[in-house]
């Protein structure tokens, strides 16, 4: 029994695409002539419908509630004699809504009419065994100078991406210079740092690395307090002495 009662009041808002859709459906089911649609009647139906839905505790999308509120207001305005209205053109607003519904209805019928057309793959069939026809492409090639230049830049850039292996150079290390200085400085008075370069220098790069290493090693030993270091004038010889 209870089931039956509920079944009678099933309100399926799921099926509707928004409030306009619902309004249109209401108008259609009540056989309302859309050309002479009474927005007043329709508003009442809409509000009744939503009230019913709310009693059934259906969750209503906000757009339905907004439409309901707006229709309730429009209804009140339409019912008032013109002089007491807040909005003088309630009729115009109602007519605009009616026009929207008529347009939507027309478009819906257009969609239905489309489905009546003889459709491809359903009512009309294509050639089942198409044959390949060779295509000769002879359209104009479209390319501009910027693309050409970019392409060239790409080629040149790609070339500069090549990984280059340089054979590791034999350089004099700071460790070697430290060992050299510690050993050779013993019992020496002030002497030129450059006296303590390795005996064999392969080339100028090796020589320069040895000078740099000697200098760094000298600073390190001075920091440790094992060495005194001085340079009397800019670019002059760097003198060292063991402490």
């Amino acid at each position, binding site marked *: 029994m209870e089931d039956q009662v509920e079944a009678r009041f099933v309100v399926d808002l799921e099926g509707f*695409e*928004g*409030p*306009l*859709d619902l309004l249109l459906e209401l108008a259609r089911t009540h056989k309302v002539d859309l050309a002479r649609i009474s927005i007043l009647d329709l508003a009442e139906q809409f509000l009744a419908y939503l009230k019913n839905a709310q009693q059934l505790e259906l969750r209503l999308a906000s*757009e339905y509630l907004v439409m309901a509120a707006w229709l309730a207001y429009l209804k009140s305005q339409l019912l008032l004699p013109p002089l007491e209205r807040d909005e003088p053109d309630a009729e115009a607003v109602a007519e605009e809504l009616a*026009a*929207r519904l*008529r*347009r*939507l*209805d*027309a*478009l*819906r*019928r*257009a*969609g*239905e*009419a*489309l*489905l009546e*057309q*003889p*459709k*491809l*793959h*359903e*009512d*009309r*069939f*294509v*050639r*089942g065994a*198409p*044959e*390949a*026809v060779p295509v000769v492409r002879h359209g104009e090639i479209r390319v501009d100078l910027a693309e050409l230049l970019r392409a060239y830049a790409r080629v040149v850039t790609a070339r500069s991406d090549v990984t280059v292996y340089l054979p590791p150079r034999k350089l004099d290390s700071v460790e070697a210079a430290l060992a050299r200085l510690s050993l050779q400085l013993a019992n020496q008075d002030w002497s030129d740092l450059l006296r303590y370069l390795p005996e064999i220098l392969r080339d100028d790069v090796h020589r320069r690395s040895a000078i740099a290493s000697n200098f760094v090693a000298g600073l390190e030993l001075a920091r440790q307090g094992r060495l005194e270091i001085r340079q009397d004038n800019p670019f002059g010889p760097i003198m060292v002495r063991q402490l």
Partner: protein
Amino acid sequence: MNEIAPSKLIVEALVFASSEPVLEAEIQASLADGAIARDILEELQRDYAGRGVRLECCNKCWAFRTAPELATALRKFDRRPRRLTRAALEMLAIIAYQQPVTRAEIEALRGVSISRGTLDNLVDAGWVIPRGRRDTPGQPVTWVTTTAFLDHFGLASLDDLPRLDELEGAALFKPSVAR
């Protein structure tokens, strides 16, 4: 029987070979000087009128299709019916009648926002494509129907869409639509 002009043979074979509509310009390109594709195609269309196969024209494209009245006799063929939701059908109708039209305009007409999938379905079917933008703030994309749409629904052109008095002259969109 009179011999048929070589250009007519070529046009017939070219369109017949393809299951897709063939562009009239493409047909013209394969003809010798002097032959006019349009004339030949219209002649062929008359030849095939009343036969089991018809030469159809849509949007300057031509294709052979089985006669619509044979639909029931050809039931055995694989049907590929496309189920359209009500929302999709309505949207398709709006685009067909109001093109070029923006998404926002469609939503305004239907009074509800469009779920992403609805438009995607129509694009996937090859029936609508974006073309150009509306010269309004945000420059929204506008949508139009394709030749495949006309072909699918057996329409020679958009003029063949059923006429709707309600849509005649009605400014569907408020002046927000600047063209």
